[in-house]
């Protein structure tokens, strides 16, 4: 009996929390591209979340310790975040416990140009046309 109890407890411990499973978080766009001419990505990010349980939820990102926005007794919500970014960063949702992340989405910032001009030189071989 005690073995069964331990097994059940272990299984429960290994399972993700209900919140983490239920929270759906989407961010658009997920990729932001910069180059030497436009080194900063100025974009309005649209963040949409939805969960099965009504409750108190907050949206955070890497750019601040305080939440971007919180919702009380809500099951879903959305927020727009105007931001100028140069580095990959994340948005995440928390419940009342703001230390526990219920869902997290990373926005990639990809810098396409290199400071090394040699990486942009054209070679003229038959196998490279790109």
């Amino acid at each position: 009996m005690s073995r069964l109890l331990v097994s059940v407890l272990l299984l429960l411990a290994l399972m993700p929390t209900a919140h983490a499973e239920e929270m759906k978080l989407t961010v658009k766009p997920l990729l932001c591209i910069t180059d030497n001419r436009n080194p900063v990505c100025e974009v309005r990010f649209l963040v949409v979340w939805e969960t099965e349980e009504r409750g108190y939820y907050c949206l955070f990102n890497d750019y601040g310790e305080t939440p971007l926005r919180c919702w009380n007794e809500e099951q879903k919500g959305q927020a727009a975040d105007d931001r100028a970014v140069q580095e990959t960063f994340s948005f995440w949702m928390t419940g009342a416990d703001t230390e526990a992340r219920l869902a997290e989405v990373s926005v990639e910032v990809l810098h396409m140009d290199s400071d090394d001009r040699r990486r942009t030189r054209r070679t003229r071989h038959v196998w490279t046309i790109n």
Partner: protein
Amino acid sequence: MCKRLTTLVLLVALATPGVAAEAPANESNWRLGAAVGYGGRTNPLVQSDDIPIILELDIAWFGERWFFDNGDLGLTFADNNALTASFVARINSDRVFFGRTNTRFIDIGLDGAQLPAAVSFKPPDRDYAVELGLEMLTGGNWGALQLSAFHDVSGTHEGYEVYADYRFGWRDQRLYLEPSFGVSYKSANLNNYYWGITSEETGFVAPAYEAKAGLNWHARFKVGYQLDRRWALSLVAEYERLNDEAAASPIVDEDSVLGWFAGVSYRFGR
């Protein structure tokens, strides 16, 4: 002309501070990629097949001074805000067309008359040439300019080529458009080695031909669409007009080379 240009390039490059190229801390020395799709290059030679491009590999390594870029080996001796100058060793690109020629039996002679018996004819073969030269790269918000001058060091054609290419890249997030155009001056020795016909090679079908120096020009348009950090869609079209001396050769059927490629590319380690 080649010596004067070389001297000029050296003077400009050496007059600038010799700061070696340095990659940012997070940039790998390697650039490895592959593209799969459908494309090709037309072959201007008579009795020849076009060159298919199904898989493209991008293998390059950039160190502080040395670099390897898809077969080109370079040593950078000047790098500053204005320009990057390197010595580069490469294999001449004109040879590629001669690897895809066919033998055919011809029964019409040079004078248009019927030959007593069909004779076999194949465009003459040409060797690869190892070339050494100088390359200058500069750029800014106005675009990018690549200037180079190469001379044969393998005793193959004993000629030289001076090349210039300008391109302007325009990006709107994932979409990238890049038109480019340029010219390539080929010396008489280079032009004649690849596109001329020697008296030993002449026969019933092809007369002897001597090609003089000439100027090729090219235009290119590239469209890219970044799918994510590593994957991208790529569409390229390229037109190169052969110089009149090469185009008039009896072994040349078309006066231009058209290249194209459409596919998906993957960049490793980005």
